[in-house]
């Protein structure tokens, strides 16, 4: 005789609320956006990007009416009933207690970035690497597995290769443009996919729509580093990514005068990342938050100009006899046409190109350029130029670089906001000198 009542039709729970049998169901607090205070300006999602850049998150100073967010350069805040209650209830992220927990300057810049990303919440860090480390550690468990790519930024690669296994997480590195390789790497312990929306330096594009669909099917979290594109050009959360990360050192701040990072997404995940961040450190100082907030105000304007110049430079470089392959979605040889599924014509302001004559010629080009500074980093108002073979990818052997597609003579060019004609003229004279040398 089968008498089982398994499944949802099994005996119920409590009779009803009127019986006075309250349990966890009676708890009142739901998740809220933020953290933010009443003084933090909230800008509706329907507003334009430039408006969000300027206004979202501004702390509207009630005491003297400061138009811009004041700097709350303090490590600690006076106790109040809210503070004591937050210690008991656990909502310490939402109350000013101590700057490692949170500070109105952090909340201003977080509110601005969350608004730009279309996210419930953001958390800022003292670097992009701090954001990546706290995110990966908090969203996986000991024994967990991460699928990522060899093409990620060198610092990220080192973290994945050298450190994650020390924390009990294993990592598989695959070709980010091959959905088959990603699928084959997924195993029972896989919890998270981590990729860059455009890779460094070759601007390879993962098949993001397929990756996200795959992740949903397999119950995996998708974390995307969108440093090269910024929320002005592409918002990964809109296509279903769970977390978006930026090195704010780059375009988000845009002035090459601070180091910072951010993670954005649903508050339930960002709270977990924040809780990890609280333990491992790497909080962003109030004065750096102030600088980042100021930099973000011009993000939309800067991206517009930088992208326009980059597009023109791609056209120019593509026709120059001293330039071999150009790596950019607008270039002739670009192999990842699905990039348009998410970028929709906005490909940012990074370009990589191969100089005829190999690394020696590329080194000579750097010496002849007058406007772009030969320096690491990217995304600032000033153009920067570097060679992967002796900087970001110098730890690899020549064969390993070739396997990734980094050929001799490759130059990475971060296009700044200088006048386009000046940048082209500078490249023209520098490339011309290469011709004279040969």
């Amino acid at each position, binding site marked *: 005789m089968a008498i089982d*009542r*398994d499944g949802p039709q099994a005996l*119920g*729970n409590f009779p009803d609320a009127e019986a006075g049998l309250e349990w966890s169901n009676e708890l009142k607090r739901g998740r809220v956006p933020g953290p933010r205070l009443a003084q933090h300006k909230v800008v509706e999602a329907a507003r334009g990007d430039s408006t969000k850049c300027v206004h979202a998150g501004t702390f509207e100073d009630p005491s003297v009416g400061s138009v811009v967010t004041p700097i709350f350069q303090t490590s600690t805040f006076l106790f109040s009933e809210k503070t004591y209650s937050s210690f008991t209830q656990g909502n310490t992220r939402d109350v000013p207690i101590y700057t490692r927990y949170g500070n109105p300057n952090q909340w201003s810049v977080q509110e601005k970035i969350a608004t730009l990303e279309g996210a419930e919440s953001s958390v800022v860090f003292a670097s992009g690497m701090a954001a990546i480390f706290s995110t990966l550690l908090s969203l996986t468990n000991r024994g967990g597995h991460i699928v990522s790519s060899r093409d990620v930024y060198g610092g990220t690669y080192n973290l994945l290769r050298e450190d994650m296994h020390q924390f009990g997480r294993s990592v598989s590195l695959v070709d980010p443009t091959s959905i088959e390789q990603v699928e084959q790497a997924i195993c029972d312990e896989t919890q998270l996919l981590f990729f860059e929306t455009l890779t460094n330096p070759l601007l390879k594009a993962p098949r993001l729509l397929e990756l996200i669909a795959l992740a949903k099917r397999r119950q995996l979290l998708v974390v995307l580093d969108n440093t090269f594109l910024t929320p002005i050009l592409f918002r990964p959360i809109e296509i279903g990514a769970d977390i978006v990360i930026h090195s704010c050192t780059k375009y988000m701040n845009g002035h090459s005068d601070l180091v910072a990072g951010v993670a954005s997404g649903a508050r339930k995940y960002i709270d977990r990342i924040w809780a990890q961040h609280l333990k491992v450190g790497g909080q962003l100082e109030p004065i750096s938050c102030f600088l980042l907030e100021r930099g973000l105000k011009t993000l939309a304007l800067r991206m517009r100009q930088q992208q326009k110049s980059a597009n023109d430079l791609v056209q120019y470089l593509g026709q120059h006899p001293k330039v071999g392959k150009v790596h950019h979605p607008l270039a002739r040889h670009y192999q990842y046409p699905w990039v348009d599924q998410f970028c929709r014509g906005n490909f940012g302001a990074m370009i990589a190109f191969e100089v005829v004559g190999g690394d020696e010629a590329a080194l000579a080009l750097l010496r002849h350029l007058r406007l772009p500074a030969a320096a690491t980093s990217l995304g600032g108002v000033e153009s920067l130029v570097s060679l992967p073979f002796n900087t970001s990818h110098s730890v690899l052997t020549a064969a390993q670089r070739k396997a990734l597609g980094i050929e001799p003579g490759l130059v990475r060019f971060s296009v700044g906001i200088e006048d386009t004609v000046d940048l082209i003229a500078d490249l023209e004279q520098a490339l011309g000198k290469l011709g004279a040398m040969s």
Partner: protein
Amino acid sequence: MRNGLNVSNVSEFVHEIREVPEEARVRYRTQVSMVRANLARARVRTCAAGTIRVARAFELPVALGAPVPDGSAPSAAEYFQAALGGCVLVTYVYGSSSKGVTLSRLGIAVETTEDAQRRPRLRYALDVDADADDRQVGNIARYVSLLSPNHRTLLETNRIDARIELSDARGRSCSELVLESTRADQSDDAQSDVVASHRCDLRWRYGTQLDGHVCSASDGRLGFPVTIDQPKQYLGIDEAPNPQELLFAALGADVLSSLLDLADLRKVAIKRATVDFSGALDVRGVLNVERTAPVKVHAIRAELGLEADGDQAELHELAARALRESSLCRLVCDPQSIEVTVRSRGSELFKLSSNQRLLRAQLAIGA
């Protein structure tokens, strides 16, 4: 933080699963495999928690049948005690934290005895020291008897869907069967002479972490230490398996033990044997968010993988019999009665016989 739990996180989760029921569904899984004739290894596998996956990197040794000579592993029956006791304690911690009660001490002693007819008798004593009056301490204990998933699983009837997969040089073959209860209510038969007694003593440490010992009176071994915890996604710190994972470890090991005993009797050489148990939890039921959501562990599945030489039909029958003869599977399928004693600050508050009749009365759905 109260009792080491972030009450805001519990509250936010309650609101989330009310709006998105999918996030409340968790599926735990433990795989038990034979190491040698009298020792198995239970490997806790990744759990599916709502829309994400939670890796669980735990391996437990389990003694099969006769005690391991060097006494290095608890038995399936002992893990079963820990699964019940751990679930009751952690439910008490969640409940008291939600209701604003701060615990200073919380412990449980679980005991299951068996007579020669293999009739079980389950009981536990809960020991509470908290900043609440006796009435509230007692009320929380009563709620726990309704809302602890493992306790509740034992009160109700359950089915186990099983799949047997054999492999040998000739290929693979599969069969399926369902284990279910054959009686509607708990047995009220008195036990005759007790032939086996298994015990677990657990103490709450902090948050969702519990420590204790398991032992069995009949074999004279010393107690084995056990630690229990929850995944960090459920406010634990990933220190140890949780009570549902222990329950599946116990069930898998008991079936494996039963299988090896039968194979020994029939002189069948088993080359490889694994027993995989999994089951679902609907956290909406456990947190009383949705009264129609089941509290108990449900959708329980067993998968036996067997590599042996012999007649395939006979091997399928042997595996099916191992499932049917597993005393812990029977304990889970049939409704049980659990004798509960509740003590506050060392003084006994009350005893209750937690069973289907009381459950129906408590749920006001008729006896």
